[in-house]
């Protein structure tokens, strides 16, 4: 009750003084933008403050790493954008929070992204980028940050932990399927969030088509601890690509593909004799579509993934989601998302086959209100149900208050 009163008071104060705060933040924005050498060097420091509250059932859904049902997850994010003349751009993103994914751990600070981008031609036909940055696969990455994302969490395919383990190989097919129950955060989703891995990319637009390809140090399913270039080295690079078709501004269609070794170096000694990390790969094929017109936005992505599992064989999964956002008034919008992930079977080692994960569906519903151009509140409810296996349910309620500066 006290928490509710405090929250109500905060909302009242925010609404009452919104425009004063907005003006102050606009001035802060101006003072955090600098230019030198006759405007040939321009830099802007900006950021977001996120305060997240979660209430969920155990085990915690998605990539949330918490043994308690209520989680308070604050986050401070800084962005640096710098333009050197017309052709060179640099950006960096750093965060202070309780972990890359919501968790009950102590505070940590990370450099999530940094990259140097060179665009030699004005029409954008070719861009070269080097650094640690989000994957080119799919269409969710462009709205993964709290201000742009209509929801508090990510679509299921980016956060639903599967029995894939990147730190050790399973001893047998049954070990692969059954060891999943313990220590959920030791396992991996098909794509881990925006996948800020390190490497180099090329991209560009040719007429109504756009292309992007990247060579990164870690696979799409790799955990944040593997994303730094010094973490796992470049011995087993991942190759990802995206081809887009934009018939007009309303529609975007895309095809994605990814291929890379998904084990971390410490898994080497658990692999079958004579095999190495590069022999076990994650293949991902993706299709994405988006539509936008006036106050309506739609997105959908479909992913088919295959993991080569030592001592088991190929483990296939299919995941997709449909997402819709509609702005009812200039400051109020709502969003709805339907997610599903289906798992194939793998040999059980005794002549039969066993499903390697429990199929599940999840519906996410969110409403959001923008108090000003700098402050936003989102409230989300999610219901997740396993449609095979123990058929467990999970309800999650989440709220996220964001101040952008």
């Amino acid at each position, binding site marked *: 009750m006290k928490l509710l009163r405090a929250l109500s008071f905060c909302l009242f104060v925010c609404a009452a003084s919104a*425009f004063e705060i*907005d*003006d102050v933040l*606009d001035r802060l924005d*101006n003072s955090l*933008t*600098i*230019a030198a050498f006759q*405007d040939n060097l*321009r*830099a*802007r420091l*900006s950021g977001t403050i996120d305060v997240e509250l979660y209430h969920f059932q155990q085990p915690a859904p998605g990539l949330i790493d918490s043994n308690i049902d209520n989680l308070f997850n604050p986050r401070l994010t800084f*962005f640096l*954008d*710098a*333009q050197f*003349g*017309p*052709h060179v*751009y640099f*950006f960096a*993103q750093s965060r202070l929070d309780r972990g890359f994914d919501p968790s009950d751990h102590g505070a940590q600070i990370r450099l999530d*992204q940094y990259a140097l*981008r060179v*665009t*030699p*031609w*004005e*029409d*954008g036909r070719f*861009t070269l980028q080097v650094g640690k*940055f*989000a994957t*080119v696969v799919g269409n969710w*990455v*462009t709205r993964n*940050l709290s201000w742009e994302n209509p929801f508090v969490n990510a679509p299921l395919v980016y956060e639903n932990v599967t029995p894939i383990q990147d730190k050790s190989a399973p001893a047998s097919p049954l070990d692969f399927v059954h060891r999943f129950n313990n220590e959920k955060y030791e396992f991996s989703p098909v794509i881990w969030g925006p996948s800020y891995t390190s490497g180099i990319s090329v*991209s*560009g*637009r040719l007429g109504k088509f*756009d292309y*992007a390809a990247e060579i990164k140090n870690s696979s799409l399913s790799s955990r944040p601890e593997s994303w730094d270039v010094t973490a796992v080295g470049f011995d087993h690079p991942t190759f990802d690509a*995206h081809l*887009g078709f934009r018939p*007009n*501004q*309303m529609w975007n269609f895309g095809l994605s593909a990814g291929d890379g070794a998904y084990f971390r170096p410490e898994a080497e000694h658990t692999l079958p004799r004579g095999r190495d990390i590069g022999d076990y790969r994650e293949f991902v094929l993706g299709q994405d579509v988006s539509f*936008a*017109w*006036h*106050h*309506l*936005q739609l997105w959908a992505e479909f992913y088919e993934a295959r993991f080569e599992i030592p001592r088991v064989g190929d483990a296939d999964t299919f995941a997709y989601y449909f997402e819709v956002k509609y*702005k009812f*008034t*200039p*400051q109020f919008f709502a969003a709805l998302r339907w997610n599903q992930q289906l798992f194939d079977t793998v040999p059980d080692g005794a002549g039969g086959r066993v499903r390697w994960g429990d199929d599940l569906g999840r519906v996410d519903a969110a409403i959001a209100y923008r108090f*000003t*151009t700098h402050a936003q509140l989102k409230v989300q409810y999610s219901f997740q149900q396993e449609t095979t296996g123990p058929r467990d349910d999970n309800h999650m309620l989440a709220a996220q208050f964001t101040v952008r500066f």
Partner: protein
Amino acid sequence: MRLPGLVWFNLVFVLLSISVLADSVLEGRVELPKSHSAPVMAKRYEIVTHSGVLSTQPPLAVVYLDGSFPKQTSPPTKQIVQKDLTFIPSLLPVQVGTRVEFPNLDDTYHSIFSYSPAKRFDLGRYRPEERPIPSEIFDKAGLVALRCDIHEHMRGLILVLNTPHFAMTDGEGRFRLRGLPSGHYTLKAWIDSKTTHEQLVELKRGETVRVDFP
């Protein structure tokens, strides 16, 4: 028959000239603030980007005569275009009741909105060929801050005024207001959301008055 026609023409011409000459003129200079830092576009999550830099628009001021004036029945329609990911002009003074159109001249979506108390609106995402051109009528005096929901760096201002007598300064801060009625008024120079200078002026028929704002 030709002579009376010529007389009438000359009479009308003389009367018109007198009435124009009878109106007062205000001119002067406003001390403009320093230029803002050049904007930087965030391209962190954009797969396809163009090279080039955003243009920098120098700070300008709006000078207007405050007072009670007869309302124009339908002020002319104005435009703020979105071109090269910038609002042009970035500052537009209009009279209350003016319709402002927002044509999109870029090869990408824009989504203009304002949460300002003087005008709250959201045009949503629309294409360059959208017809009729999305527009809004600004029917309440005040400052309207424009943003684009897609391109965070885009900023624009519409200053909605209760007077038909206003002018933008040039880059040097010089202004000139013509066709003003005689009388006692307050002349205001709007610099930014926190700064408006003002001076009392007395306008007499046919006179040119000079006012400088420090």
